[in-house]
C-alpha cells in the first residue's frame, strides 16, 4: 500500500480516533495502585447445622423427668415443625421442682422474612438471638463448655437455674425451678441441685440432637483491654484513595451507621465511622470495639465477626445467574473476609451491591468497609472487581492506621 494512502485526511482522522480509543482504554484498565489480586485464605469456619424440626418431648428422656419432676405431666405449647419453637413443661403437685425446656429454631435466607436484617445464615440469626439472651442475663451468666456450639448457665431471676445452649440454628434453654421453700442453710445445696438438674436436662436435649452433651463449667476469661478509637475514621482514609474511589468533590462525614450492624451481637460497642459519598458511589468505614459478655465464648467483637462472616458466606445473589464472591483473606489483621453479592442492599441504605471487607485486627477492633454504587445518579454501576478492590484498598490502609 503506497504511503499516500496514510496521508489522506480521512485516514488520519480515523487513525487519531483509534489512538484516542486505545489511550482511553489503557487509562480505564490501569486503575492505579489498587491491590489485586488479594491474598486469599482458607475458610476457617465450619459449616453450620440447620435444624428443621425439634425432637419429641423437646429431647428430654423419661429417666431425667422421673428424677427431676417425679410424677410430672407434660404440657406442650407449639410443637409443629413449621412453628418457630416449642416449649415442654413438666410439673406435678407432689414434685418439688418444675422443668421447662424451650427450643427455638431460627430460619433465614431468600424467601424467609427476617425482621432483624438482611442476614442469610440461619446459624447467624440464632447467634443474634443467643447473644441477646446472654446480654439479658449479663450479670449472672457463666460460660459452659461441652454443650452444643456454645452455652451458658444463669439464675432465672427467681429460685431456679437455667442452662442455655446454641447449636447451628437451634437455641435450647432448660430451666429447673424449685417449688419448695428452704432456709438459708439449705439454699446452697438446693442451688447445686437445681444447677445439676438444668444441666442434666440440657444435656439430654443436646444428646437428642447429636451434638456435644457433656456440660461443665468453663473458665471465666477476662474482658479484653479497652481500645481507644479516633473520633472519626475519615482520617484513616488517604485523600488520594478517597478521590479515586468517590471523585474529587466527594462529601465526607463521620456520622454514619454501620450498615452491617443490624442484629449485631456487640453490647455497649464503641464505634468510629466515616462515610464518603461521591457521584454514584458510597464508601463507609466503621471501627467497632467492645467488651466481653459473660455468657459468650469469645469477646463480643470476635462473636460479631463470626456472625457477619456466616451471613456473608450464606448470602445468595438476586438471580440464579447473578455474580457472587466470598473469600476469607490472609495477611489482613488477625482475620478477614471479603464479599460481593449482586443485588445486595441493606435496610435503609441507598447503596446497591456493596463490596464488603470485614477485618478483626490483632488489637481487637472490628473494621468494616463497604463500597458500592448509588443508583439514580447517572453513573455506571461499579463492576464486581472495582467494588472489591476499592473496599480492600481502603481496609488495608485503615487497618494499618488503626495499628499505627
Amino acid at each position, binding site marked *: *500500500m*503506497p504511503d499516500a*494512502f496514510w496521508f489522506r485526511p480521512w485516514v488520519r482522522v480515523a487513525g487519531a480516533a483509534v489512538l484516542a480509543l486505545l489511550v482511553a482504554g489503557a487509562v480505564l484498565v490501569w486503575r492505579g495502585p489498587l491491590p489485586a489480586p488479594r491474598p486469599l485464605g482458607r475458610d476457617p469456619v465450619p459449616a453450620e447445622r440447620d435444624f428443621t424440626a425439634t425432637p419429641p418431648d423437646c429431647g428430654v428422656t423419661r429417666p431425667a423427668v422421673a428424677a427431676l419432676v417425679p410424677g410430672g*405431666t407434660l*404440657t*406442650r*405449647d*407449639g*410443637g*409443629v*415443625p*413449621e*412453628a*418457630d419453637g416449642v416449649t415442654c413443661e413438666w*410439673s*406435678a*403437685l*407432689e414434685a418439688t421442682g418444675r422443668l421447662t425446656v424451650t427450643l427455638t429454631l431460627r430460619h433465614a435466607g*431468600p*424467601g*424467609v*422474612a427476617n*425482621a432483624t436484617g*438482611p442476614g442469610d445464615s440461619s446459624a447467624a440469626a440464632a447467634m443474634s438471638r443467643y447473644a441477646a439472651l446472654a446480654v439479658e442475663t449479663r450479670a449472672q451468666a457463666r460460660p459452659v463448655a461441652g454443650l452444643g456450639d456454645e452455652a451458658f448457665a444463669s439464675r432465672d431471676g427467681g429460685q431456679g437455674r437455667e442452662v442455655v445452649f446454641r447449636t447451628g440454628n437451634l437455641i435450647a434453654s432448660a430451666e429447673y425451678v424449685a417449688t419448695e421453700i428452704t432456709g438459708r442453710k439449705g439454699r446452697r445445696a438446693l442451688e447445686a441441685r437445681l444447677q445439676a438438674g438444668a444441666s442434666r436436662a440440657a444435656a439430654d436435649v443436646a444428646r437428642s440432637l447429636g451434638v456435644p452433651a457433656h456440660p461443665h463449667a468453663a473458665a471465666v476469661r477476662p474482658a479484653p483491654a479497652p481500645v481507644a478509637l479516633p473520633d472519626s475514621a475519615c482520617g484513616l482514609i488517604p485523600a488520594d484513595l478517597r478521590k479515586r474511589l468517590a471523585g474529587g468533590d466527594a462529601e465526607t462525614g463521620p456520622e454514619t451507621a454501620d450498615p452491617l450492624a443490624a442484629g449485631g451481637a456487640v453490647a455497649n460497642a464503641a464505634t468510629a465511622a466515616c462515610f464518603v459519598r461521591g457521584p454514584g458511589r458510597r464508601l463507609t468505614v466503621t471501627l467497632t470495639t467492645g467488651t466481653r459478655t459473660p455468657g459468650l465464648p469469645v469477646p463480643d467483637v470476635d462473636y460479631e465477626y463470626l456472625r457477619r462472616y456466616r451471613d456473608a458466606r450464606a448470602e*445468595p445473589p*438476586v*438471580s*440464579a*445467574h*447473578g455474580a457472587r464472591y466470598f473469600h476469607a483473606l490472609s495477611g489482613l489483621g488477625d482475620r478477614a473476609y471479603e464479599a460481593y453479592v449482586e*443485588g*445486595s*442492599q441493606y*435496610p435503609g441504605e441507598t447503596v*446497591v*451491591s456493596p463490596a464488603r471487607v470485614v477485618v478483626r485486627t490483632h488489637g481487637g477492633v472490628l473494621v468494616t468497609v463497604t463500597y458500592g*454504587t448509588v*443508583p*439514580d445518579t447517572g453513573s455506571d*454501576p461499579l463492576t464486581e472487581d472495582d467494588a472489591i478492590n476499592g473496599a480492600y484498598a481502603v481496609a488495608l490502609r485503615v487497618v494499618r492506621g488503626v495499628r499505627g
Partner: protein
Amino acid sequence: MRLPVSRRTRVIAALAAAVAVAVVLTVLVRGGGAGAPLVAPRYGPDPVPALRTLSAHDLPPRCGVRAATVRRYAPGGHAGAGRRAHCQWYSLNAGRKRCGFCPSNGGDRERVLEVVISTGTTPTLGRSAGGDALRALDPAGLVTAGTPGRTVTGLGDEALYRYSPALDGGATLTFRVGAAVATVTYSGRDFFTHRMPGEVPEKSAKPAVLAAAADVAGALHARARPAFTPAGPGPVPLRHVPRPCDLVPGAVAGRLAAHATRTRAPVPPAIAAAVATQSGLAADTCAWDAARHLSVTLAWRPDRGRTLAVPEATRLYRESHEDARATGVRALRDLGDQAYAAYGAPPDQRTAEVTYRYRDVIVLVTYSGATDAPLPRATALTGAYTAAVHTFAALSGSGHA
C-alpha cells in the same frame, strides 16, 4: 494505488453499519428495551364475590344455641335472653352446685360453653371484613398459636376445629358465614383432691362444640351438619420456586424501569403483613429502582405438602383480594389461576398492583413512578400487567411447573 470508488464506498458503508449496530446494542444493553411491547390489562368479571356481613338484627337470641344443647353440655347454665353476639353458660357439677366462677374443690367438675359471633361490620383498619373473616379461619394462622386446626365440612361456608387445653382450656370450633365469624368454645376443669386439675377431655369437648355450632349455624340459616372429612391430595404445587429477579426479562425491565439496578428488596406491606402473622409463609422480592419502580414478590409456603399447598395459597389470594376491594379492584383474565389489579393502595396511593396466584405461589407485581412524578393510573396498571404477564410466562413455561 487508489482504492476503487466502489470499494471505498463499501468500507465506509461497513463502518457506518458497525456504528449503527453498536448504537442499537448500546441502547438495548443500557435498558432502552424499545422492543418489549407493553400489554394492556385484560379485565374480566370478578369470580370472587364480596362476602356478606350480618347486622345485629340477624343474630338470634342466646346466640342460637338450643335449650336442649345447654341442658346436655352445660346444665344449669344461663346466658341471658338478651344476649345475641356473646353468650356464655357456666355449669358446676352438672348444675347441682350453683356458684358462678367460684373457687372449686376436689371433686368439682366445671364446664363453660361460650359462643362469640362477629358480624364483620367493623373490619381491622386498612383491611376488609371479608379478609378478616378469612384470616380468622386460616389454619396457618392457628398454627402460629401452637396447635394446628382440623377442617370441618358441612358447617357454614367453612369451619375449623381445634382441641388445645393449653390455649383454649378445651375445644374450639370456628366457622364462617359470609364475613361473619362464630367461635364456639367448650372448656372447663375437673378438680381433684391430690392432683392438679385436669382440663376437659376431648371426648367431652368435641361433641359439645359440634352440637352448639350446629345450633348457631342453623339459626344463621347456614349449613349445619358438621363432619370431619379428610382432605384428599390437592392440585400439584410448583416443583421449584425461582428467584423473582429471574422472572422479568431484561428488555421488559429496561422498558419499564430504564437504567434500574435490580436488588433484593423488603417485602411490600400487602405481603409483609401476612408473613408476619402466618406461620411458614415465605416471601422473596426483587426490585428495579430508578426513576420508575418495579417490584416482583413471590409468596408461598415451602413446607406444605400436596394436600395443603394450593388450598392455602388460594386462601391467601382471596384474603388479599378481599382487602384490596377498599381501593377498587378489578379481576383480570388469562393470568395465572386467578388475578386482580388494583391502584392506589397505601402508603403512597400512586402504585399499581397486579396480584395473581399460580398453583401454590402468590405473585405480586407493583409499578409506580417517582414521588414527584407519579404515573397516570392507566400507565401504571399497564406496566404492572406487562411485567406480570412475563412473570407468569416464566413461571408456567420454564420447568418450574
